[in-house]
């Protein structure tokens, strides 16, 4: 049985003036332990899809299932890393990371250790007592990753979590994420603008069409793991990158000419 299943899901945002059809007839199922990335033009509805999986917004039609049950409220099994970080500005880095364990009743000592480990992993030990407002965009993004991981969700929903990082840090974080989820068996649903990032991380890449977002193509990525950076030089990699690139380009053009 699929862990996440989107069944012919559509979303229309209605306001007094206009209706915006963000997602149309989107179907996808993700197995437990899979890493699936979603690529597509800006504004094509990627975040909207993720928001429906997390239970933040309800589909206009169609259904989202988690382990066969329809999602009807905010789903704590899904840990979200928000595109805008959504860190609590009044909490320090450490307190932000501890937030999930704290509201779930984990003891003070355990969550302290948990937070320390994750903060160390993303290289922010010296900033544990800083407030988010004192950090750079890339540092905030790493804190957001820690906060989601510290809660140990079954599913990680990542909305461009590495977009603000420089190329080197980004690679390190990608590897770190892969290490963690391969150890824990967590399922990852990941949005990115970068095809390279999609290819390094995923078991499958889903290409979305221009808005209203539909599934345009799904590619199985059979590159062997662990994938080091030099996988990018292999023919297999370049072939699939070319294919996805062409599709995405088409859709970006389509979305710009509207």
């Amino acid at each position, binding site marked *: 049985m699929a862990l996440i299943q989107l069944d012919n899901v559509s979303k229309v945002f209605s306001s007094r003036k206009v209706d915006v059809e963000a997602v149309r007839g989107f179907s996808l199922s993700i197995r437990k332990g899979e890493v699936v990335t979603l690529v597509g033009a800006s504004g094509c509805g990627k975040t909207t899809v993720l928001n429906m999986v*997390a239970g*933040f917004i309800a589909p206009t039609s169609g259904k989202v299932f988690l382990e066969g049950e329809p999602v009807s409220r*905010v*789903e*704590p099994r*899904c*840990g*979200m890393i*928000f595109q*805008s970080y*959504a*860190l*609590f*500005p*009044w*909490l*320090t880095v450490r307190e932000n990371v501890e*937030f*999930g364990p704290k*509201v*779930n009743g984990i003891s003070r000592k355990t969550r302290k250790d948990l937070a320390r480990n994750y903060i160390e992993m993303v290289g922010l030990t010296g900033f544990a007592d*800083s*407030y988010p*407002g*004192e950090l750079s965009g890339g540092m905030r993004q790493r804190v957001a990753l820690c*906060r989601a991981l510290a*809660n140990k969700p079954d599913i990680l929903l990542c909305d461009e979590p590495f977009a603000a990082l420089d190329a080197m840090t980004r690679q390190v974080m990608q590897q770190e994420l892969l290490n963690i989820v391969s150890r824990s068996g967590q399922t990852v649903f990941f949005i990115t603008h970068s095809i390279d990032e999609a290819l390094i991380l995923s078991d499958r890449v889903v290409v979305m069409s221009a808005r209203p977002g539909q599934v345009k193509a799904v590619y199985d990525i059979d590159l062997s793991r662990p994938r080091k950076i030099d996988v990018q030089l292999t023919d297999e990699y370049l072939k699939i990158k070319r294919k996805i690139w062409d599709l995405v380009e088409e859709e970006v053009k389509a979305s710009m000419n509207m």
Partner: protein
Amino acid sequence: MEDTDLTFWRAAVYGSLGLICFLGLWEISIRLHLVDPFFLPPPSQIITRAIRMTTGTDAVLLSDIRISASRVLTGFFLSVLAGVPFGLVMGVSSVVRATLNPIISIIRPLPALSWIPLSMLWLGIDEQQKYAIVFMGCFASILVYTTDATMRVDPVLRRAARNLGASDFQVLRYVILPGALPDLLSGLKVVLAIAWTCVISAEMVGANSGLGFRIWTAKEWSDTGQVLVGMISISVTVLILDIAFRGLERLLLPWQRKVSGT
């Protein structure tokens, strides 16, 4: 050229200069008989008067200040205690908001002074009546400030908290309350000033102690010196309370101080 902020000490120097010039002009205009000291006593006379009112046999000034301030603070705390929780609930629930809005819209525009007749009929002129006036003058404003502050909390933060497993109550306690606190505290600062207006007015109309009462009786005796001592006492007390309030703000909002880099 850009107008940059002065350091604390430079600002203090300029401020003292301004104050000294102002007081000097005031004093001189009376010494030169440009103004009749009966209408406006000079600063020197006000100072001796203030000293007499704090040290002499009928030293009432300090106890008046204490009495007025305790009326203000008691009434203010009571309205905060009632208004903030209500405002939080209104901020998060559109149903509660819609239900209470008409009632608040009727109460809020009423000046605190307009409650004086009713409150005197109900409660006489004792302490409870003073608290009631402050409460009626502040409660609706606190509700509105709290509701607004609550509604301005970034909804994505609520989502984030819920996503991390927080219950309704935990969202309220750990996200809405701290998120609303900065706006809430600046709102409460404004309300504290309203509370002073309420107490001084109530004391002028019906009381036998407090700064408002002292100013009003002085007026009956045409004692401009005492009127001015009373007025200046209000200014100074409000200033001191304001400084205390700012200290409280810094204590409660360490993240804002650090982030703004001061």
